[in-house]
């Protein structure tokens, strides 16, 4: 029954036009998520690669990223809203903070997990540090790196719902509104949309992974570790 209501809500033409329509909300949701994941990647990938490559600061990195994980997104978003006087920046920062740890973990573990013998061989045959990073370590780290990005995306998509609390028209809107008036149709409909969006993005990233991960690594029988990161939204 509640799923029937959700269906009805999803199919209601009124929900598909105007400034509060599903497409707009999907768009806004997506925009924040992509912005956050890209922003987080811009910070976390270089950092993870650097620490993994040099082996310096690993302990600090792990500790720091654990602390980031403990930061409650709702608290961060409301805090930043009040400080910045608006929701957008706060939400973006909150989501970036959420996305950094899994990407960092993926990049760092990816480099760390590269077979020592392989790195040794690269050094031994005369590669400079940069050549080694770009030609050997990075390609071999891609499976875990892409895994980190996928984790980050899943979490960010789920958590961007919270942004509606500070007035941003994401897919969290129907969740919060539905909740206020206990309109389960709207509420579950919104939840289904968020979940769907997450699944679609995950599949897209999986396909991207197929494209960028070298074939020689995909062939290897070794089961790939894709540590699941915590969710915070």
């Amino acid at each position, binding site marked *: 029954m*509640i799923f029937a209501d959700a269906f009805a809500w999803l199919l209601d033409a009124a929900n598909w036009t105007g400034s509060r329509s599903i497409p707009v909300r999907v768009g806004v949701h997506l925009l924040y998520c992509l912005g956050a994941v890209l922003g987080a990647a811009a910070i976390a990938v270089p950092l993870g690669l650097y620490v993994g490559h040099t082996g310096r600061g690993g302990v600090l990195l792990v500790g720091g990223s*654990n*602390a980031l*994980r*403990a*930061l*409650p*997104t*709702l*608290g*961060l978003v*409301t*805090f930043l*809203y*009040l*400080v910045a006087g608006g929701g957008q920046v706060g939400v973006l920062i909150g989501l970036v903070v959420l996305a950094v740890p899994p990407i960092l973990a993926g990049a760092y573990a990816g480099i760390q997990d590269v077979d020592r013998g392989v790195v040794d061989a690269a050094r031994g045959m005369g590669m400079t540090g940069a050549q080694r990073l770009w030609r050997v370590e990075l390609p071999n780290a891609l499976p875990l790196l892409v895994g980190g990005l996928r984790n980050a995306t*899943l979490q960010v*998509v*789920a*958590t961007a*719902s*919270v942004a509606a*609390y*500070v007035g941003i028209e994401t897919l*969290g809107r129907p*969740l*919060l509104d539905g*909740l206020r008036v*206990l309109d*389960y149709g709207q*509420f*579950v409909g*919104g*939840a289904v949309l*968020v*979940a769907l969006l*997450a*699944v679609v993005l*995950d599949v897209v990233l999986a396909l991207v992974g197929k494209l960028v991960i070298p074939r020689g690594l995909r062939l290897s029988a070794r089961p790939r*570790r894709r*540590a*699941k*990161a*915590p*969710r*915070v*939204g």
Partner: protein
Amino acid sequence: MGDVVKYLSDAGTRAALWSMLLDHVWLSLLPLVISVVLAVVLGLVCHRYRRLNGFVVGLSNVVYTIPSLALFAIIPAVIGTQVLNPVNVVLALTIYTTALLVRPVVEALNAVPAHVTAAATAMGFRPWRRFLTVELPLSVPVLAAGVRVGSVSNISLVSVGALIGTGGLGTLFTDGFRQRYLAPIAIGIVLTLALALVVDLLLVGLRNLVTPWARAGRA
């Protein structure tokens, strides 16, 4: 800063903070404890019947895509608990944490060296006994890593429950927001971090206590 001092100067507020903190603790840790048990059982099943592996891991990934806010509120509609019942949050977090832990458990069990399990079998261990006394203890280090992540994540997630009025430190965020009052929000964030840190330290201590052999290896 002055605000924080002022905010904390009220005894009633401090009492309220304390009770929120306690709420937060059990709202986040109870699901963790239940999840560990559930995940171990599920993990065992997956480990025994490898064909289930893909299914369970896939399912846990799907569970992971549901926004927590949605799960907090759908649960009463589905299972008929009271709307404000904290069981909803506990259940939702249990579902997430179990989804989070199943995989490390399976991986940890699979990572127990085949020669060790073979040796146990050959010595005459029956399957259950082997699981409880050999495979499970050996998977503790990996399991503990998963539990640490789960505890941090739960502690930070419970806050979202404030949006539907389930208590915990998240209430400080909604209250502070409505009043445009940074002090409670800042205190909420700090307490959440501190709680996560303390629980993490406790978990590390617990792990070290039950895995003396791991330290022997490092020494």
